[in-house]
């Protein structure tokens, strides 16, 4: 049961990311009737911009990721949206617009070209945006190698000091090695239970707390001790794991913590004993789902309740007639492109928070990810906004439940299997119909 709900949570979190990316495919298809193959590369750009932006900020201002101010996430998200939106605008303006009247196949091939271009530019060795601390080496002056001599070492008497620039932490473009994005959104398990809290009394041994109340530890659940101490006048918090059997413990009993190299003296420390939930609900997942839902609801309102949305749907139906209404078609198309890329950027930001190990920009992992989002759009009915959302959750569902209950190796097979089945049964996708309600 717990497994089921855990899989369900993963489905909802990742499904909302698929849905956001699928919306970009569907918006562009709805208006221009071609698959923007560069869309997944925009997603990659968003993820790497998130990495670069937060790394630059944290390094420049000397923050640890955990201490980053709450607004940093918002700023990095806006940065990713800006960078991706601008790139999307330029792609449409200079690659696709000149081909507006050309056969769709030409545009499709151009889209593949743009995709390859982005991938290859993305993995170029870049210029350093920020560097780690400078490396200073001191050695006897007569032992300098030729290379070291060429870096202008400072020589005082017979010792030389060599200063080397620090390692490039973030570059532009992004280079060809994987990186780890700092987690700048808050994360915690929301539904933990506090079993007991109090002050550890007496006890001479290090790494041991002495209960000031009776507790019961049930089997098959994880427990954690949150310790708050004061060291040299500085408050200090840490988290320790218990190393005791389940059962009942009276007040005054000693509880050992997992052995460490240098266990702390916990006498007089404030402790909080926390039980892990059966199905942990993480704040990060809640943030991901909440922000995706806000974006999707916003898009829904934009497309179906505003004048600009009517204009988008009109352009999607017939460009010429739309312009007779006084609609600036070029503006609407650019806007739609920027909108789609902005959604991909938001998805990429959230993705980089959840899965911070970023593969290099041209990695096949990204291609597969983009392909799944594209499948989501097709399954839902390409061109249909609600279909893209439905498709996103369906694809994630079949992928995660299949991986959990059948076999992990086949997770991509389920996705493409679903695509084939849907296309056989409903060639226009689940919500696509002959009388199209397209954007």
């Amino acid at each position, binding site marked *: 049961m717990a497994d089921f709900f855990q899989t369900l949570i993963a489905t909802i979190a990742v499904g909302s990311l698929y849905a956001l990316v699928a919306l970009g495919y569907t918006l562009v298809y709805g208006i221009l009737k071609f698959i923007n193959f560069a869309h997944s590369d925009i997603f990659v750009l968003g993820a790497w911009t998130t990495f670069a932006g937060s790394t630059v900020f944290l390094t420049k201002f000397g923050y640890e990721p955990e201490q980053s101010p709450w607004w940093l996430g918002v700023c990095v998200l806006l940065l990713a949206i800006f960078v991706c939106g601008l790139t999307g605008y330029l792609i449409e303006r200079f690659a696709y617009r000149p081909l507006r009247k050309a056969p769709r196949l030409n545009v499709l091939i151009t889209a593949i070209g743009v995709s390859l271009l982005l991938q290859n530019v993305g993995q170029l060795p870049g210029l350093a945006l920020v560097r780690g601390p400078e490396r200073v080496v001191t050695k006897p002056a007569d032992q300098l190698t030729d290379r070291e001599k060429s870096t202008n070492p400072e020589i005082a008497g017979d010792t030389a000091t060599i200063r080397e620039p620090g390692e490039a932490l973030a570059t532009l473009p992004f280079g060809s090695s994987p990186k780890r994005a700092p987690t700048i959104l808050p994360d915690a398990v929301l539904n933990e239970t506090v079993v007991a809290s109090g002050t550890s009394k007496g006890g001479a041994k290090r790494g041991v707390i002495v209960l000031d109340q009776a507790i019961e530890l049930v089997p098959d659940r994880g427990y954690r001790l949150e310790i708050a101490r004061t060291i040299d006048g500085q408050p200090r918090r840490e988290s320790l794991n218990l190393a005791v059997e389940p059962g009942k413990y009276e007040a005054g009993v000693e509880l050992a913590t997992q052995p460490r190299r240098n266990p702390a003296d916990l006498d007089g420390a404030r402790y909080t004993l926390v039980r892990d939930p059966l199905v942990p609900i993480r704040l990060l997942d809640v943030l991901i789902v909440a922000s995706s839902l806000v974006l999707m609801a916003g898009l829904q309102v934009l497309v179906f309740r505003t*004048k600009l949305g*009517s*204009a988008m*749907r*009109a352009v*999607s*139906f*017939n460009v*010429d*007639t*739309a*312009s*007779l*209404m*006084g*609609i*600036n*078609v070029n503006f609407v198309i650019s806007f739609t492109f920027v909108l789609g890329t902005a959604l991909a950027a938001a998805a990429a930001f959230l993705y980089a928070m959840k899965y911070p190990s970023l593969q290099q920009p041209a990695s096949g992992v990204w291609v597969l990810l983009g392909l799944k989002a594209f499948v989501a759009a097709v399954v839902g009915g390409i061109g249909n906004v609600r279909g893209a959302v439905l498709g996103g959750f369906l694809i994630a569902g079949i992928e995660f439940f299949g991986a959990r209950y059948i076999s992990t190796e086949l997770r991509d097979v389920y996705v493409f299997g679903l695509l084939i089945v849907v296309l056989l049964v409903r060639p226009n996708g689940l919500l696509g119909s002959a*009388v*199209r*309600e*397209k954007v």
Partner: protein
Amino acid sequence: MSAAHTDDNPAKLAEQHIRPNTGDGPVMLQVSDLHMAYGAIRALHGVDLTVRQGQIVTLIGCNGAGKSTTLRSISGMCKPQRGKITLEGREILGLPSHAMVRLGMAHSPEGRGIFANLTVEENLELGAFARRDKSGIAADRERALTLFPRVRERMKQMAGTLSGGEQQMLAMARALMARPRLLLLDEPSLGLAPQIVQTIFKIIREINAAGTTVLLVEQNAHMALNIAHFGYVLEVGRIVMARPAKELAASDEVRKAYLGGH
């Protein structure tokens, strides 16, 4: 009639057939020497026409004569290679269509141009896309719906589910939402039952009586000449006759070629 151009005395014959549109009103639209080709296919070979303020001017001609191309050139939907178009004295050739709407021109295209994926109401509101005056839009919407009560009954329906006649009414109501000073109508009677055609023409007259100038393209020459002030006959990309509508309706050539008379 095309023989008129190769006749011994073309000047005399041309004078007989082509007269300037001299009316009281100031010139609303002036088209001169318009040439338009779709790639190698030449559709217009120097079209001249004048529409005066307050008039209904009709452009009649057979299928493929270039009537729609003329309207599309005027509203900026296609780019003529040569010629001059002025709207109320202002050069408009080369402007994009969405800019024309702001200059007071509305074009209801051939085939009605209904957005089937939008509701009737959304279609109607798109007609006022370029406008910002809320109260004016509301007033025009009321006026349009009074002219076309059938449209009012269908507001929440998808426009694609309307019948042909209803779609035509919606297209015209939508064009009125722009509060145009010049309304271009391309074959509003095409494919409609005779009774609905009557209604449509009656409403065109009412729209005109309320102050909107109309350039009406029609294959139904009889009905068009009946309500128009001035008429032009287009044949393979050239204006071959231009006269007050009554005279045109009475002329032998037109009766033979377009009114089914013998």
